[in-house]
């Protein structure tokens, strides 16, 4: 059967419907009295708390202040992962020897969840900025490597042959053939990488940081302020969504500029 095309308006409508349904159900559950408000605050309480936190300090900073601290750590970890991961992936895609050396190690390490690095991050960096950056890096690094590697491996072999017959040296093949050809794959890798990095950040801050959304949530927990914890969750979700949308937009713009979207 043919799938009917869903317009942007319908898609937005359906999305809002899902969200409204979820919040409605949550609200009913919270006000029914079946569950204590400490266990499950109502959406309105969370909304109140969220707006209050926008300009009132909690655990040393307002919510935007905490978000800014978190975002800075995230940006460092994410950029570091991209700057090391993309070249490494491309090099592994070009030099088979490097691929053979690195792949087994990489494939084993990437199954270690970023949060498993927390004890070492604390041990090596104390409560400084290095710890969270390392954990975000651990989350964001693998998709950068994997997608750059895939991009380099799936370059049209005829383009490699053309480059070879033109006498192109390896460094130039990597920069001028493999890299541009891998851009779509790298960008989708960056999207996954940003998502995983942002997720890992909160885990990292739950333990080692002294400011940031994760830290705010830990303090909320200590004060039995479940609304603060939930306001933190909402903020994390919103920033994550914004981040993903921004990268998706970048992806579209790049595709269009390359003239490959038609």
């Amino acid at each position, binding site marked *: 059967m043919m799938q009917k095309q869903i317009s942007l308006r319908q898609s937005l409508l359906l999305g809002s419907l899902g969200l409204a349904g979820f919040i409605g159900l949550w609200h009913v559950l919270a006000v029914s009295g079946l569950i204590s408000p400490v266990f499950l605050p109502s959406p309105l309480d969370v909304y109140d708390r969220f707006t209050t936190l926008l300009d009132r300090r909690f655990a040393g900073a307002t919510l935007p202040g905490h978000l800014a601290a978190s975002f800075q750590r995230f940006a460092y970890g994410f950029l570091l992962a991209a700057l090391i991961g993309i070249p490494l992936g491309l090099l592994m895609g070009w030099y088979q020897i490097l691929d053979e050396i690195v792949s087994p190690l990489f494939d084993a390490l990437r199954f270690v969840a970023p949060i498993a690095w927390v004890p070492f991050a604390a041990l090596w960096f104390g409560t400084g900025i290095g710890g969270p950056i390392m954990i975000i890096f651990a989350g964001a690094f693998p998709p950068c490597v994997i997608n750059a590697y895939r991009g380099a491996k799936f370059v049209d072999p005829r383009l490699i042959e053309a480059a070879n017959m033109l006498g192109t040296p390896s460094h130039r093949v990597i920069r001028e053939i493999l890299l541009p050809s891998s851009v779509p794959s790298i960008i989708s890798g960056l999207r996954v990488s940003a998502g995983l990095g942002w997720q890992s950040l909160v885990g990292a801050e739950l333990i080692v940081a002294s400011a940031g959304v994760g830290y705010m949530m830990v303090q909320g927990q200590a004060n039995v302020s479940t609304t603060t914890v939930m306001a933190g969750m909402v903020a994390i979700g919103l920033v994550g969504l914004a981040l993903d949308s921004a990268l998706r937009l970048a992806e579209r713009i790049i595709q269009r500029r*390359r003239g490959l979207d038609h």
Partner: protein
Amino acid sequence: MGVIQFSKVDKVFGPRATGFRALEDINLEIRDKEFMAIVGPSGCGKTTCLRMVAGFEAATDGVVSVDGTPIKRPGPDRAVVFQQFALFPWKSVYDNIDLGLRNQNVGRADREARISAILNLMNLTQYAKHFPHQLSGGMQQRVAIARAYVLDPDVLLMDEPFGALDAQTRVVMQEELVRLARKNPRTVLFITHAVEEAVYLADRVAIMTRAPGRIKEVLDVASIRNAENWDSYEKIEDVMDLESFVHLRTHIWRSLREEKAAQHV
């Protein structure tokens, strides 16, 4: 110089004993500045011959050499024009042509002069800043030919270069290639399955058998072309009407048909 030599070349894809025997005992010499076309039924290994000269494939047995030196790897002395153009989609026409010159560390001013000369020769000057996807197939193949020619290679390898073009564009490109080859002669190895194209363009035409491909026959077209003065005709269709042309074409057709018939028995 640019003498291509195949001596006792076998090519097997896969294990030597059980793999696919693509080529068997190929012996062929392509002289300096000669235009050699290879025709043969599809799957006969004609493209494999070209890929061995390019350095993309190694011979299983025997030697492929240029000017007596066995071929080990691809290089700009043997420029290739691919059937599917293989232009770099993210580089402009200018930058596509420039890459090979940059690889040879040619100075900027010299590069600019050589590129603008070849753009002019190929009627591409106004498209220098365009990207490949903005051009028609015929224009893209002009760029690919310019990219190869600008390197001033000893040997030009053309792998069914007009196979992806429509009939009209194809004719124009054939006429242009003749013009280019007369003006700036190179050793050319030209792979095609179009018989007319081979006879119109080549000095000699090698006919291959079905797989495993062998050289069945090599026809001298140049002596007939010169004797019958083909070059005095401007249009390809006028040449194609000549009795001498038709005679050669029919001869090659028959030869290929034998191979086809044998293939399907």
